[in-house]
């Protein structure tokens, strides 16, 4: 299967592939194709793991991470813990093209995005509120905390440090249960 051009992406996100391929066919650059393909997934909230309204954190907020890399120049633009901006890959592209930096994070990344013309809006949806509510009702399970009190495997926070560490083997088996095909990076 050696032939160019090529678009390949993780998971069965067909529309993202189609969009990236269409950009290439229309004469766009590889960066354009990656940006538009990933943006399509953000807009469509691909399997709930991309874009707004998915994967709420412990406080119920959705935050976004994105990165784009130019394999010719080795330039990288990335954002992490981005809040209130839906088009994370677009902001990553802006970091690449409009700064000499590589990675902007958190609230400051959102301010950068707004200054670059991206619209700030709530990333919460009814679905993410429901996921968060169910998590609270289920005693905050699954839970990524460890070595804290109260016991994070049975109780919600707030948490404080605990002196007796959880055995490493138990931590690993718990970890396996957390990340899965519906919750992943």
């Amino acid at each position, binding site marked *: *299967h*050696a*032939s*160019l*051009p*090529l*678009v*390949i*992406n*993780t*998971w069965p996100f067909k529309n993202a*592939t*189609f969009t*990236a*391929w269409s950009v*290439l066919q229309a004469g766009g*650059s*590889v960066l354009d*194709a*990656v*940006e538009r*393909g*990933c943006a399509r*997934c953000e807009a469509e909230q691909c399997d709930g*793991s*991309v*874009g707004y309204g*998915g*994967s709420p*954190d*412990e406080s119920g*907020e*959705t*935050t*976004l*991470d*994105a*990165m784009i*890399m*130019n*394999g010719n120049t080795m330039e990288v633009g*990335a*954002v*992490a*813990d981005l809040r209130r901006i839906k088009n994370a*890959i677009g902001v*990553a592209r802006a970091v690449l093209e409009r700064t000499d930096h590589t*990675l902007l*994070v958190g609230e400051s990344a959102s301010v950068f995005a707004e200054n670059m013309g991206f619209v700030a809006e709530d990333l919460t949806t009814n679905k993410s509120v429901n996921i968060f509510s169910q998590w609270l009702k289920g005693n905050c399970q699954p839970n*990524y*905390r460890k070595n804290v009190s109260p016991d994070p495997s049975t109780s919600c926070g707030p948490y404080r440090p605990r002196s007796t560490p959880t055995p490493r083997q138990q931590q690993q088996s718990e*970890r*396996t249960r957390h*990340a*899965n*095909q*519906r*919750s*992943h*990076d």
Partner: protein
Amino acid sequence: TIGMVVLDGSGHIAAGTSTNGLTHKVPGRVGDSPIAGAGAYADSSAGGAAATGDGDVMMRFLPSYLAVELMRAGADPSAACEAAISRIKRHHSQFFGAIICANTTGHYGAACNKVSGFTQFHFMVSNPETDAPVLKSVDCL
């Protein structure tokens, strides 16, 4: 999470990722997706790769960088992907994750770590032979 690698007809490569991360994460947590070499990596002289899965574990091993460097050294994309997964598996046998790889000639491959409920990894490909997005899959290691 979506991870994507794109090559044009001249062999120029770009890679990217976008994600909202793990559900119920501790606020402030960032995964592998925005880290070059972890979530994705591209070098037009060697190839591109993008990883997906449990970013807290995967980002410690820079699997995308490793896969690209293996392709630079002559490994085919499938072998490069498998080696990147195996490197993590050596330390975290039950980690959830997968990776896609493509070299400069348009050859591609993928690999994943087999855990309960995840025995096959699905990914999408479009090239002149398919002329449309085609769903591919690989059995996990």
